[in-house]
C-alpha cells in the first residue's frame, strides 16, 4: 500500500516538474541557456611529459575563463575538452579519432609531442578539422596537411639557432656532442643542429641516442666523456634531460650542457637539482621578453593557479585565443559542423602577413603556406641559482 502511494507520488512529481510542455518556454531557454562551442585541447596530461600537459591545461583554462566571463563567443559559451594522449603516438591516434568523430568539436588545440601531432595529422586531415599545436616543433608536423598549424618556430630553425649560438655567442666551444631522443622531435632537431654545426665548422665528436623513458644514461655518457667535447647538446625532453645532466655531472663531465625547448619545464630544475646550474636552453617565448599583455597574463595566471606560467602555458593561451578569434569571426550556428570546421581553417590560413596576424602575448603569429609560424624568434635561457633566467647575450639574427 505504501509502495503504491510512493510510486504515485513519484509519477506525480515527474509529470508536474519533468514533463512540462516543450513549447511553453523554448524561446526563454534559447536566450538563457547559451549554445556551447566545444574545442578540444589534446596534450599529455599523464605520462613522462605530464608536466608540460599540466601547464597547457592551465593556460587553456585561464583563457577559457576569461572568454566566458567576458560573455563568451558572440554570446555562446566556450567549452574546452581536455583529451589526454599521454605523450604516446598510439594514444594520440585514439584521441584524434575520438575528437574527429565528435560532431560537436570545432577545432583542436594540440598535440604537444611532435610524434603525437604527427599521429593525429592524418586523422584530422581526413576529418577536416584544424590541429593547432602550441608545442610541436618537428619540421614535418605541418607539412603535407592543410589542416595543421602551430604558433611557434620549428626545429629546422631551432637546430640552426642553437648551433650558431654555440659558435658565435658562447666562447671556447669547438667540439660538440649530441645526445638525442630517438623520436621525431629528437631526431629532427639533431639533424638540423648537426647540418648547421658542420656548415659553420663546429666539430661533431659524438652522436648518441636514447629511448624515451630511459632512466640510466651512464653507458652513453661514459662514451661521450671519452670524446671530451666542449659542449653537449641534449635533443630531447626535460624528463630524460634532467637525468642526463645529473648523471653526467656525477660521471665527471664538465662540458657545457645545452638543451632545446623540450627541456623548458620547471621539473627540469627539481630533478636535476644543482647539476642543472649553467645549462643553456632555447625557448620560443619567455615572459621577460613579453610586453605588458604578457605580464598581465602572468599575473592573472598566478592568481588563478597559484604558480607562475611557463612558455607552454603562454603558447596555449594564445592558441585558444586564435581559435576564439576564428570562431568569433566565422562561426555560423546554421551551418553544418563540416562548414564551421572549414571556416576556422580558412580564417587561420588567411593570417599570412604581419599585418594580417594574430597578436597574442607571445607576439605576432602568422603562417606560411604549410601552416608554420613565420618569424617568431627563439630566446636563450640559462639556469642560474636554481631558476631559469634570460641569458645575458641573445642571438637576434641568424646568418
Amino acid at each position, binding site marked *: 500500500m505504501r509502495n503504491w502511494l510512493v510510486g504515485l507520488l513519484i509519477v506525480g512529481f515527474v509529470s508536474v516538474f519533468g514533463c512540462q510542455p516543450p513549447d511553453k518556454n523554448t524561446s526563454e531557454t534559447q536566450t538563457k541557456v547559451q549554445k556551447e562551442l566545444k574545442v578540444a585541447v589534446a596534450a599529455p596530461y*599523464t*605520462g*613522462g611529459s*605530464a*608536466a608540460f600537459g599540466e601547464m597547457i591545461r592551465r593556460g587553456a583554462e585561464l583563457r577559457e575563463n576569461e572568454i566566458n566571463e567576458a560573455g563568451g563567443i558572440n554570446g555562446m559559451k566556450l567549452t574546452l575538452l581536455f583529451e589526454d594522449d599521454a605523450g604516446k603516438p598510439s594514444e594520440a591516434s585514439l584521441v584524434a579519432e575520438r575528437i574527429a568523430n565528435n560532431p560537436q568539436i570545432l577545432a583542436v588545440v594540440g598535440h604537444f609531442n611532435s610524434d603525437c601531432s604527427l599521429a593525429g595529422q592524418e586523422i584530422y586531415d581526413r576529418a577536416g578539422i584544424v590541429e593547432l599545436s602550441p608545442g610541436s616543433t618537428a619540421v614535418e608536423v605541418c607539412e603535407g596537411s592543410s589542416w595543421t598549424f602551430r604558433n611557434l618556430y620549428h626545429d629546422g630553425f631551432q637546430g640552426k639557432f642553437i648551433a650558431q649560438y654555440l659558435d658565435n655567442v658562447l666562447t671556447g666551444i669547438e667540439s660538440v656532442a649530441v645526445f638525442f631522443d*630517438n623520436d621525431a622531435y629528437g631526431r629532427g632537431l639533431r639533424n638540423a643542429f648537426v647540418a648547421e654545426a658542420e656548415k659553420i665548422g663546429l666539430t661533431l665528436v659524438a652522436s*648518441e*641516442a*636514447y*629511448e624515451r*623513458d*630511459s*632512466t*640510466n644514461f*651512464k*653507458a*652513453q655518457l*661514459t*662514451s661521450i*666523456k*671519452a670524446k671530451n667535447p666542449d659542449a653537449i647538446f641534449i635533443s630531447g625532453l626535460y*624528463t630524460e634531460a634532467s*637525468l642526463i645532466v*645529473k*648523471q653526467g*655531472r*656525477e*660521471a*665527471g*663531465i*664538465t662540458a657545457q650542457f645545452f638543451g632545446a625547448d623540450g627541456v623548458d619545464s620547471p*621539473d627540469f630544475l627539481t*630533478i636535476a*637539482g*644543482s*647539476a642543472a*646550474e*649553467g645549462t643553456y636552453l632555447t625557448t620560443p617565448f619567455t615572459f621577460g621578453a613579453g610586453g605588458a599583455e604578457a605580464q598581465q597574463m602572468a599575473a592573472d595566471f598566478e592568481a588563478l593557479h597559484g604558480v607562475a606560467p611557463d612558455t607552454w602555458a603562454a603558447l596555449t593561451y594564445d592558441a585558444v585565443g586564435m581559435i576564439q578569434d576564428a570562431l568569433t569571426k566565422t562561426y555560423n550556428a546554421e551551418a553544418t559542423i563540416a562548414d564551421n570546421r572549414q571556416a576556422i581553417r580558412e580564417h587561420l590560413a588567411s593570417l599570412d602577413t604581419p599585418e594580417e596576424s594574430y597578436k597574442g602575448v607571445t607576439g605576432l603569429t602568422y603562417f606560411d603556406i604549410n601552416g608554420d609560424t613565420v618569424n617568431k624568434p627563439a630566446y636563450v635561457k640559462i639556469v642560474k641559482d636554481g631558476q631559469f633566467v634570460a641569458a645575458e647575450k641573445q642571438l637576434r639574427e641568424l646568418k
Partner: protein
Amino acid sequence: MAQLLEQFINGLVLGGIYALIAVGYTMVYGIIQLINFAHGEIFMFGAYLALMLVTVFNIPFWIAVPASMLLCAMLGMLIDLVAYRPLRDAPRLSALITAIGISLVLQNLARMIWSARPQLFPTETLPAFLISEVNMQTGEILNAIPLPGGGILPYRDVSILLLAVVLMIALNRLIYLTKIGKAMRACAQNRVASNLMGIKTNQVIAVTFAIGSALGAVAGIMVGLSENITPTMGYYKGVAAFAAAVLGGIGNITGAMLGGIIIGLAEVFGAGYISSGYRLAIAYIIMIAVIVIRPSGLFGKSTANRA
C-alpha cells in the same frame, strides 16, 4: 682503456641491481612455479616507501633502507596471502593472470598516492658520500675514486656493489645453511612431499616472498639514488630483471645472480660500443640467443619434471 674499465663498472652496478630483482622472480618461481609479475611493483614500492620515510617522516637514510625492506617484505607476504594462496591449487594460468592484475593495481595505486611525476631522493636526505658531483671549476670529482686513465668510480657505485654482493652471499648462506633454507629447497624440489614431511609449506612460501621482496626493495632504493622514481619504474627494470632470471635458468638462484650481471654488462656495452639507441634490445638478443641454444637457461635443469 679507461673507458672500457668505466663501462665495465657501469655494467656491474646495473647488473648487481638486476641480480637483486631477478632473485625475487626466480625464488618464487622455484617454489610455486609462478612468474610473479607484481615483483617489479614491489621494487618500485621499495623506492617510494624509502623516499616517504626520509622526506615525510624525516627518518635518516640508513634506517629508511631496512625499514623499507621490512615494509616491502610485509607487502610481499600480504600479496601472497591475499592473491596467490587462494589459488595455490588452481590452474597455473589463474595465478599468472592474478599476478598481472596485482601488478596493475599496485602501479595505479602508486600513481594515485605519489602522482606520475618523477621524483628523486632530495640531496640533503642522503649521506654525503653517496653524492658524487663534479666541481665545475677544477674538474675535481667529490666522493669518487679516480681510476687509471681518467675514469672515476663514485663511492655510491662501490656501496651499491658491496651491498649487492653482501646480500647475495647472505642469501646463499641462508638457503644452504639454515633450517628455513633447507625447507625452501625441499619445497622447490617437491611441495606436496615437503608438506607430507611436516614442512609448513605456506609459511615457507611466505618467507620466500618476504626475502625476495626485501631484496627487490633494496634494488629500488639503489635505482632511486641516481635515476627517477616513478610508478612505471618497476615495469622497465622488472622486465630486464625477468630476462636475467630466464637467462640464468628460472628457478636457479645462482643463475639469476649471474644472469643479472650478464644482462647489465650486455646493456651497457651494447649502448657504449654498438648502438646506443638499442641498449635494451641488445640485452634481449643475448637472452634469446642463450635460450635458443639452452632452453632451460644457463643454470637451469633440463629435466621436464616441473611440468
